[in-house]
């Protein structure tokens, strides 16, 4: 048996899964200190199921704490940022397009050094030892411990980043360093942004992980604990102390994975309707379709692999115009319970329309009796049209696809959706995120530079896959269930002919 917990900005959800079966579920408000909410949710599901702690083999946690810290500009530590790429990018320093309040929150020292590589493997410039020594000495003198390093084309040659890290650790043994090539993909500024955000979160990550583990221990849960990443796989809780930024967007991923688990549909559109937005995503082969555009987090461009989510301003608290023709994007959000008409407030919301139309019994029906029936009908039509139009936009190649409705606002869909080949409203849809966290799998990734002239392609890919598989097993995956989910081959020009960068990602179930 395992526990899945999702700590969101407003709600903390928790479930116990016995194999595929949900045997306990709870949804509670997230507490200000986070941990007391988690502890309360744990107590609730343990009580509901009457399961003994020793029967729980693993705990999986999904959290938006690190995303929220960035968005709200809190818990961020002072950082040093080293960019290696001169003489390119003169006058274009790191954080050049960051929002001013975020620049102030990070209060960074910036260093720009010569070095880095071109797309074809030639050096941009030689590393200059005097520059390196001066930089390290300056960081040491200023007492900065959190450091991000980004070098041009480091996904293809990470040597400059590694070299700098070694020098820093020699001078500052307790430094915490984030290297940009660990955040993959091309796009120096976006990768550097990811590294800076990660580095500035490191002390907070330590605190959060310790308090999570503390809460589990206090409740007698001594099993391994994992935290879910943005791609739907798990990291050990301790790994998060070094890579908190990898949790960004794990929320939507868990919601999509949870919807998949609840219905068993490998290909479907998932519509998660909350208080302010409807988030439309796509599952393909049971995994979220990834976005291919730049993802903005707290006003900062990043290159994280994120689920492709279309968020539209339609939720249970969305404002409705008098004639019913315009809905959202403004919403009363969690103030619905005081500001909505049915709760005695003065604001016409989608929830009021639902009550006026006789589809739900929430609050006082009398307070919406005065609404014009035509406007109510129009508002319902507008809501359905918004969903249908946007679901159409997300359909891959116009294929007929089923739609899975999850989230508290799913009741807004009263008339079916013509964009859906079939509409599913699974049980436990309100805790889809926690279920998604509970079923998260273990991944392993390996990247090698190989020559197809020396090793035939098939053999080469097999050797990289084997290395990735071993990593996944080491991380706790069941060898029987491991499969390759992504094989990326990139020819490397102007090098030995046939030189290719091969990256393989495998995933498997967590071994029980």
């Amino acid at each position: 048996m395992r526990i899945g917990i999702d700590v969101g900005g407003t709600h903390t959800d928790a479930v116990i899964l016995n194999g595929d079966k949900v045997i306990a579920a709870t949804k509670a408000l997230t507490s200000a200190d986070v941990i007391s909410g988690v502890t309360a949710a744990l107590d609730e599901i343990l009580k509901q199921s009457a399961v003994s702690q020793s029967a729980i083999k693993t705990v999986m946690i999904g959290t938006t704490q690190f995303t929220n810290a960035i968005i709200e500009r809190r818990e961020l530590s002072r950082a040093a940022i080293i960019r290696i790429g001169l003489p390119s990018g003169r006058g274009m320093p790191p954080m050049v397009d960051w929002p001013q309040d975020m620049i102030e929150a990070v209060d960074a020292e910036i260093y720009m050094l010569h070095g880095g590589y071109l797309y074809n493997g030639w050096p941009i410039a030689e590393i200059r030892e005097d520059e390196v020594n001066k930089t390290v000495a300056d960081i040491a003198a200023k007492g900065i411990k959190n450091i991000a390093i980004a070098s041009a084309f480091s996904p293809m040659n990470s040597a400059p980043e590694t070299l700098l890290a070694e020098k820093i650790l020699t001078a500052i043994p307790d430094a915490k360093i984030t290297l940009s090539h660990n955040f993959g993909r091309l796009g120096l500024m976006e990768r550097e942004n990811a590294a800076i955000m990660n580095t500035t979160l490191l002390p907070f990550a330590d605190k959060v992980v310790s308090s999570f583990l503390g809460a589990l221990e206090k409740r007698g849960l001594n099993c391994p604990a994992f935290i879910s990443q943005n791609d739907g796989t798990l990291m050990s809780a301790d790994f998060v102390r070094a890579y908190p930024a990898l949790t960004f967007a794990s929320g939507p991923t868990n919601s999509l994975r949870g919807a998949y688990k609840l219905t068993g549909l490998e290909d479907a559109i998932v519509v998660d309707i909350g208080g302010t937005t409807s988030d439309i995503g796509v599952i393909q082969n049971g995994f979220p379709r990834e976005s291919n555009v730049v993802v903005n987090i707290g006003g900062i461009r990043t290159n994280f692999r994120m689920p492709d989510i279309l968020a539209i301003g339609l939720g249970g608290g969305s404002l409705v115009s008098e004639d019913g023709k315009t809905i959202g994007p403004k919403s009363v959000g969690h103030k619905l319970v005081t500001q909505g008409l049915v709760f005695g407030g003065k604001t016409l919301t989608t929830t009021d329309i639902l009550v006026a139309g006789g589809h739900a019994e929430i609050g006082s029906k009398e307070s919406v009796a005065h609404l014009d029936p035509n406007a109510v009908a129009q508002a319902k039509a507008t809501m359905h049209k918004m969903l249908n139009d946007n679901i159409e936009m997300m359909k891959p190649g116009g294929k007929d696809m089923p739609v899975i409705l999850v989230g508290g606002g799913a009741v807004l869909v009263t008339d079916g959706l013509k964009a859906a080949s079939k509409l599913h409203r699974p049980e436990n849809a309100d805790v889809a995120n926690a279920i998604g966290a509970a079923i998260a799998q273990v991944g392993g990734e390996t990247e090698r530079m190989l020559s197809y002239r020396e090793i035939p392609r098939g053999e080469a890919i097999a050797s990289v896959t084997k290395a990735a598989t071993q990593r996944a097993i080491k991380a706790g995956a069941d060898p029987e269930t491991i499969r390759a989910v992504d094989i990326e081959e990139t020819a490397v020009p102007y090098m030995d002919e046939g030189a290719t960068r091969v990256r393989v990602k495998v995933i498997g179930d967590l071994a029980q």
Partner: protein
Amino acid sequence: MKQIDLSHLKDLALGSVFLATGGGGDPHVPLLITQQAIKTYGPVSLIAPRDLKDDAFVVPIGNVGAPTVSLELLPSVDEAARTIDAFEAHVGRKVDAVASFEIGGGNSLIPIVAAAGKGIPVVDGDGMGRALPEAQMMSYAIAGVRPTPALAMDYAGNIATFETDTTEVYERHIRSFAMAAGGMITTAEHAMTGAELKRSVIPETLSFSIQLGRTLRENRGQAEELIGPLQDVFAPSIYGQCRLVFQGKVIDKATRIVGGYDVGEATIERFDGASTPLKISIKNEYLLAVLGERVIASVPDLIVIVDYETGTPINAERLRYGHRVAVFAIGCPDFYRTPEALKVVAPRCFGFDLDYVPLEDL
């Protein structure tokens, strides 16, 4: 003389994405470097072509290479000005003003970076009035301006100079140098006198693009509400006609890379599903719009696809199934309707078996 300051740049970038007719790439990095240049060196003077002295010395400047490379090999704030310095040393003459290759996309901004660094004006105009895929389609080349002497500079300040007879050969050589220099270079080329510029430039496109960007920003909303304000800015300009020719949903889009170009077709169906769908042919840019057998608009006139709800221009790479869009057709500047220009930019030059008919006559 007008000025370009920080407050104009976002509008200019937005206007230039609209005029890029689906091509031109993401202007994010060019916009950032231009903002840095103006923060560092101050605002730039914008000079109307007619205000240039006939014996003034003008050189167009811009980037050549693979836009994706500049995601890692970042541009430098002084690179464009240093390119002009080196060009002046090479030809032994002071440059009085810089001009733009094409208003569509990031190269609308690079001359501003050069002008800021050098403290000289930028010409209010460009060599295309839109975006087009090849250098010989530039109005400067069509009007007979020689591509060389030309000079290219890489990120490290390394220099190559060029002497070629034709723009076609020049284009081939400059591309090889771009690859050898790391994938992205800055070039100064097609230098000319004020008198030559006056007969070869597509005038007023920089100030027009700022005005267009502002119009799109201030009238953000559904296409039916946007068309009025758009017509108000296009009608008195060098473009003239602006028509809202179609609104609907993209029901198919397929492109593939052929000879370095993104080639293919998009099909758009009316929202009510009625009548024939509109077909848009793509080769980097949107080049041809056909409804059944009827041509709605063709290159060199401009075809622009925007998001139906917001009026934000949609790049051809980003256009996909399900997008709810509006399609605008806009008359091209008169220069591109001359027989000399049509020799290189008529529909047949892009492989379409039809003669060019101006938008107003369709």
